């Protein structure tokens, strides 16, 4: 009888501790998932920037006179590489995207360039990385949604306030992104 009286509070305390640990770990794991998906966006942006010098080299060989557009691309790439935070990076990426659109539009005037294997490959790679950037952004928002839900729903809400876990912000689609990019010829 004496043992039972002691055992009950011990079990209750143990259960509470386990629940606390479980919630703490849940927040950490979900937070790490967000950081990890953010890193994935960076990887894709970096890969995109790495493809640009190759593209410029190839285009130079066929369309020497299009200096303006090529410096646009180079500048956008520099802006992308020097951008510090995600919004700045994404903004630079949008500039790069519109500059690239112009290059590919100009390529229409140079049949030899269009027929170049290397150019075709780069064009495909660049549009593939653009897709990948979009998909990794999508997953980044998914992980944030999941995280925010877990700290807003009861009883997660209570634990979130105990561990002072803060809500994370989604990547907003900027106004520039919403309107379709105009290609200048």
């Amino acid at each position: 009888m004496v043992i039972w009286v002691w055992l009950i509070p011990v079990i209750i305390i143990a259960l509470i501790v386990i629940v606390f640990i479980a919630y703490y770990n849940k927040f950490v794991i979900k937070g790490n998932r967000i950081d990890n998906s953010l890193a994935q966006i960076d990887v894709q942006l970096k890969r995109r920037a790495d493809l640009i010098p190759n593209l410029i080299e190839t285009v130079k060989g066929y369309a020497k006179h299009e200096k303006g557009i090529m410096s646009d691309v180079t500048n956008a790439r520099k802006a992308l590489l020097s951008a510090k935070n995600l919004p700045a990076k994404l903004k630079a990426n949008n500039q790069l995207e519109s500059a690239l659109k112009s290059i590919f539009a100009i390529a229409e005037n140079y049949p030899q360039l269009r027929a170049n294997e290397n150019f075709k490959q780069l064009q495909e790679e660049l549009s593939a990385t653009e897709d990948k950037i979009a998909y990794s952004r999508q997953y980044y928002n998914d992980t944030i949604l999941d995280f925010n839900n877990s700290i807003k729903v009861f009883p997660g809400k209570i634990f979130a306030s105990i561990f002072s876990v803060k809500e994370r912000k989604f990547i907003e689609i900027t106004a520039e992104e919403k309107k379709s990019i105009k290609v200048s010829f």
Partner: protein
Amino acid sequence: MAERVLFYNQINKNKRNSIFLVIIVLAILVLIGYVIGMALGPDYFTIVMILAIIISLIYVWVGYYYSDKIALASVKAKLADRTQYHSLYNAVESMSLASGLPMPKVYIMQDQQINAFATGRDPKNAVICVTTGAVEKLDKSELEGVIAHEMGHVANFDIRFMTLVTVLVGMIAIISEIFLRSLWFTNIGGNRDSKDGRMQIIFILIGVALAILAPIVTKLVQLAISRKREYTADATAVKFTRRPTGLINALKKIKNDQPMKSHRVSKSVAPLFLSDPFKRKVQNAFSTHPPIEKRIAVLEKM
């Protein structure tokens, strides 16, 4: 959040089912060993039982760790070359990013039919196999839709259960068949008058019944499960691509496609595929996949 819960339920269900399946297969194998041991007579019983237990443990172990390789080998799939199939790699990489799952290995199998399947024991050891027909006939968003469906199977842990079922059940069918055939060579009821002789006949009859029934029952279970999974994987695919059009168009193309050259695909691997490789028209308890029209209709409502 309801759908999220649904996916987690699916994952837990699949993990549980995998364990059940392994236990059931172990039990069936030991039972078969018992029946064979009884059929052969008391002289062999102990040795047959020991063998049966050892063989069934090895069998399940091999099934768990090598089922993906067995499935891939049975359709003669090869690791896809990155430069030759770069558009396929791009699609798989995109879907791996969209789903947040590790990049699976990409395999290719030579067949003109548009089809694909996923296998492996967990998302870290996943393989996606696509036919050459799918790479040639599908455009980018359709290919992404198909890959997203397969990633759906990976995400929901369907691959572990499905591949285990395919390989473990497929092998049971083979073993039962060997048992049936070996009966032709045994001296059935050589001494009819003795009690042992009659016991032997009874056990041989049970053995025959088991050999016939076991594959049918397990097959029925496997097929019923497979059909529900396809709808879930379609839904997961839409969650990854955010638009159902790619998968819908791919399914429409598959609908008008030719059947797979059946000598390449053993029947037991059929449930793994995106759509029925043999393109059987009649729907019944033995169908491996839900009708494509129905899947398209469900997707169009999303």
